[in-house]
Each structure stands twice: as C-alpha cells, then as structure tokens.
C-alpha cells in the first residue's frame, strides 16, 4: 500500500467514520424510538464525507462546486417539504436525481479515461451508466404517473415485452463490445441512449397499483449504479452506500411482490390491468346491504373492538384527519381501535403509516397484515376505508381469480364488516369483490371524508 500524506489520511479517516455512521443510521431506523437519531447519524456522516472530499488536494477549483452545492440545496429544500400524500412522487424524483448524478459522472469518467480503460473498469462503468440512465427516465416516468401528469392507466401493445427486452439486449451487447474494445468511444452514447429509452418503455405498461413494487425496484437500481460508480472511482464509501441502498430496495421489492403474490418479472412484464377489464364488465347486480351514518355510528359505538383498514382511497379523499377524529371519538367511549395495514396499501412501501402518523394516530395502533390478521375473528367491526383488492376474499378461495394467492387482510372474519365506498365500481385490478355481498357486510356509500365526518358527528352528538 502506498503511503498517504497527512491530508489524505484525514480524508480516508473521515470516510471511514462516515461509513460507520451510515450503517448505524440504518440500524437506528429499525425502531421509531431511535429512528431520528439515525437521521442525525446519516447527516453527520454526510457532512464528514463532503468536508473530507473538499480537502482533497487534487481539487483546484472550488467556484463551481460551491455554486452547485448552493443550487442543490435551493432545489432540495422544497423537495423536503412536500405534502405527505406527494411523498411517492418525490421519492421517484429523487431516484431520478440520484441516477442522473451517477450517469453524468460515469459518462465523464469514460471520456476522461478513453482510450485506455481496463476491461473490468469498462464493465462496471457500463453497468453504472446502463443502470443509471434507465433508472433516470424510469423514475421520471414513475414520478409523472404518480403526480398524474402522465396517464396512470397501463399502456400496452402487442410484442411490448419483446421490444423492451430487445432494447436492453442491444444495450448489453454494445456494452460487451466496449469491454472488448474500449477504444471505440463512438459507441459509448448507445449505452446511455438506449437505456434512457428503455426506462421510458419499461414504465409505460405499469399501472398505479404496481407503483410500490416499481419504486422499490428503481430504488435498488439507483443503489447498484452508485455501487458500480464506487468501483470505477475506487471509493469504498460509495461502494458501501450503494450496496446498502441496493439491498434496501431489493428487500422492499421482494416484500411488495410477495404482498401481491407476484414475481418481479410479472410486475415488470405482466401489465396487470389488461387481462381483467373483461371480468369487470360481467358483474351482475347482486343485492348488497347498505347503511346510513347513524346506523354505522350506532354499531361502532356498541363495539368493543374495531379494526380500521385504510387504503389508497382514504388518501385520495384526504380522509385521514376525519379518521383520526373517529379514532378519538371511539377511543373516548372505551372502544379498542386498531389499524390493519396491507403492505401494498398506498403508492409506496409504508405510505399509509406515514399518512396516519401525520394525522396523529399513535404508531403502536398501526399493525401490519401479519400482526392484525389473527385479531379479525375477535373483532366486532372491521371498517374498510378506500381499500378494495387487499380485502378481497376471492384471493383466498377463488382459484380462478386473477388475485388468487395474494395475501389479504381477513376482514371478512370480523363479526360485522363496513365498507366505505363511493359506488359499486371495481378496484384497480378491475375485480369484483365478494366481500360486499356477504350478509355481515354493510356498504356505506359516499365520499370517505364526508361519511367518516358524519359518523363522528353522530358519535359526538350521542355523547355530549
């Protein structure tokens, strides 16, 4: 090992401490009680790493670095202050920024090093820019869909998978050629341009309900591309941060896929919506029982144990604060109220928890699917607000159902089920929900926010 100068030693030690702080940061995130300490550790690590880097003797010009740091801060602050409902698109956008950074650095590194790029270096460099550029456009597309600038409906056409895989195949083939002949720099733009196109094509067939999986997957790609950049720059810190991010994205993607009983390839190449549009049409008019806010309030007030199951519909209707009032009104009457949260509820992993925490609902009342499912048989009322497919018992019983095998919240095992829903229209997957026709189910037709508001008024009126 070559001897390091004094400054270099300081920089390397700063990086070493930063690495430890990053790992601690994620470790402390495991529990809500230590999580904020985790953010602090991450910030401190980042500060050390950046200050250390600025000491780097090779840096001859600081003007543009400082301007860029200031500009990035100016852009970053509003991105840190978006509404909680907009967190999924903000996250997608930040994956795009991360990928942009990696792709630009990779591109510059190639042109600075060409024509003598060692084989292994060219390989990781290709990986870096391919993953980076497809994540860049893919994340922008996902953000556009989530922000509803782009149509959320999956767009599919015949031979789509062949076109997409073909594009990726060509990019990989060009990368392979560059590894063999790194001096052929004129081909380099292809391994940036083709993945940019692939990123767009990859997201076009993906619908709103698949966004949690896709965001996680893009998160993983962003991490892996940063790790590849670490190999190119020989930065252990970057390799470790990228590996941590990649691992995190991968774990979340696997969780999301499992929660939908689908494989990765099925999410990416399946285009869920199209197969079932036909099934939605043949819905017959079966009788359902409905109830008024007064009746619903009376049943809830008489219950001992209530489980509320929120879905993305609750967030769309901005009903979370009314739900909090309902929680308060029932808790005051001595009713035990808990929330059952499906892993894919919302538009990204954990989204529903953040929305309910924002409405001041204590986190120990928010239980995930595995924790809550055993409770339903002892539950007096399961109140479903804006969720549909994640409560569909057909996933357990009907082998012909497109969602058969998907783990669901067993709300149908509660003594009474109440479902707040605007109309009898089918959910994202376009599948009819047999839950609505059970004799123990009461349909509460109306807008989630105003309906919950009416129930709260009824409960308040009876009490004071």
């Amino acid at each position, binding site marked *: 090992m070559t001897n390091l100068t004094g400054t270099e030693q300081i920089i390397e030690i700063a990086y070493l401490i930063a690495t430890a702080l990053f790992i601690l940061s994620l470790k402390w995130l495991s529990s809500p009680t230590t999580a904020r300490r985790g953010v602090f550790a991450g910030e401190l690590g980042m500060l050390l790493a950046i200050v250390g880097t*600025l000491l780097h003797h090779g840096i001859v010009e600081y003007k543009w670095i400082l301007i860029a740091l200031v500009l990035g801060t100016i*852009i970053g602050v509003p991105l840190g202050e978006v509404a*909680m409902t907009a967190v999924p698109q903000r996250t997608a956008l930040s994956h795009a920024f991360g990928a942009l950074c990696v792709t630009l650095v990779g591109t510059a590194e190639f042109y600075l090093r060409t024509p003598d790029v060692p084989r292994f270096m060219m390989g990781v460099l290709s990986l870096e820019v391919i993953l980076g550029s497809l994540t860049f456009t893919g994340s922008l597309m996902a953000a556009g869909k989530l922000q509803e600038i782009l149509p959320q409906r999956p767009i599919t056409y015949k031979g789509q998978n062949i076109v997409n895989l073909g594009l990726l195949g060509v990019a990989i083939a060009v990368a392979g050629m560059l590894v063999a002949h790194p001096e052929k720099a004129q081909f380099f733009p292809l391994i940036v341009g083709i993945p940019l196109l692939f990123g767009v094509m990859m997201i076009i067939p993906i619908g709103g309900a698949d966004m949690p999986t896709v965001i996680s997957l893009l998160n993983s790609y962003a991490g892996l591309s940063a790790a590849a950049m670490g190999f190119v720059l020989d930065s252990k810190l970057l390799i470790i941060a990228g*590996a941590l991010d990649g691992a995190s994205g991968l774990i979340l993607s696997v969780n999301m896929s499992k929660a939908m009983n689908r494989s990765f390839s099925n999410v990416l190449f399946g285009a869920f919506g199209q197969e079932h549009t036909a099934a939605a049409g043949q819905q017959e008019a079966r009788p359902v029982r409905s109830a008024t806010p007064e009746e619903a309030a009376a049943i809830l007030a008489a219950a001992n144990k209530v489980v509320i199951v929120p879905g993305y519909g609750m967030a769309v209707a901005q009903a979370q604060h009314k739900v909090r009032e309902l929680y308060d009104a029932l808790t005051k009457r001595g009713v035990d109220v808990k929330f059952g949260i499906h892993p894919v509820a919302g538009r990204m992993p954990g989204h529903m928890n953040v929305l309910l925490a924002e409405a001041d609902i204590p986190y120990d*009342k928010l239980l995930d699917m595995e924790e809550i499912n055993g409770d339903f048989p002892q539950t007096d009322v399961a109140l479903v607000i804006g969720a549909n497919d994640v409560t569909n018992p057909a996933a357990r019983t009907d082998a012909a159902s497109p969602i058969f095998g998907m783990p669901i919240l067993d709300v149908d095992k509660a003594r009474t089920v109440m479902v707040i829903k605007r109309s009898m229209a089918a959910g994202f997957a376009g599948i009819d929900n047999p839950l609505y026709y059970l004799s123990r189910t009461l349909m509460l037709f109306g807008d989630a926010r105003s309906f919950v508001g009416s129930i709260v008024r009824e409960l308040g009126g009876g009490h004071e």
Partner: protein
Amino acid sequence: MKLDLLTSLYVFMLAAFIGFEVIRRVSPLLHTPLMSLTNALDAIAVVGAIILAGEHHAHGAMLAKVLGTIAIVAATSNIVGGFLITDRMLRMFKASGPKKP
C-alpha cells in the same frame, strides 16, 4: 484483475450482507422513511461528482466541469431533501401514551 478491485468486491459483498441484515429489521411501519433515508445516503455519490468537477484535467476539462457540476446539483438536492423529509416523517410518529403535545 488488480488486487484493489478484488478488495472492492469483498467490500461490496460484505456491505450487501450487512445491508440485508440491518434493513430486514426495519419495521414495515417505517418503510417510507427507510426509502427516503437510503436515498439521501446514496447521494454520497456527490463525493465523486465533487472530485470530477474540481480536479484538473489535461483534456476534457470542460466536459468534466459541466457534467460534474450538474451531478453535484442533483446529488445535493437529494441529500438536503432526503434528510429533511425523513426527519419530518419521523417526527410525526408518536406512541400512544400519557404524554400528549
């Protein structure tokens, strides 16, 4: 393959294992803050961009400066925005109990 590349592969492998073990323990409750935090940490790529933009290059200096500067802007916005929103989210998670604001 050079020795330092092999060392880098070891580092990557060990970091991936640590990542899996540490992140598996994060409660589903905090999966959204987890993603925004890892995103901010991932923006450590800024160190590469800083060196790219600031170092002296015999040729391709303009390219390095322009791409490096844009890359710093992108990464910095992730660092600032990512930490800010993670902390904002985590502040909202409160346990039920006697202490009320």
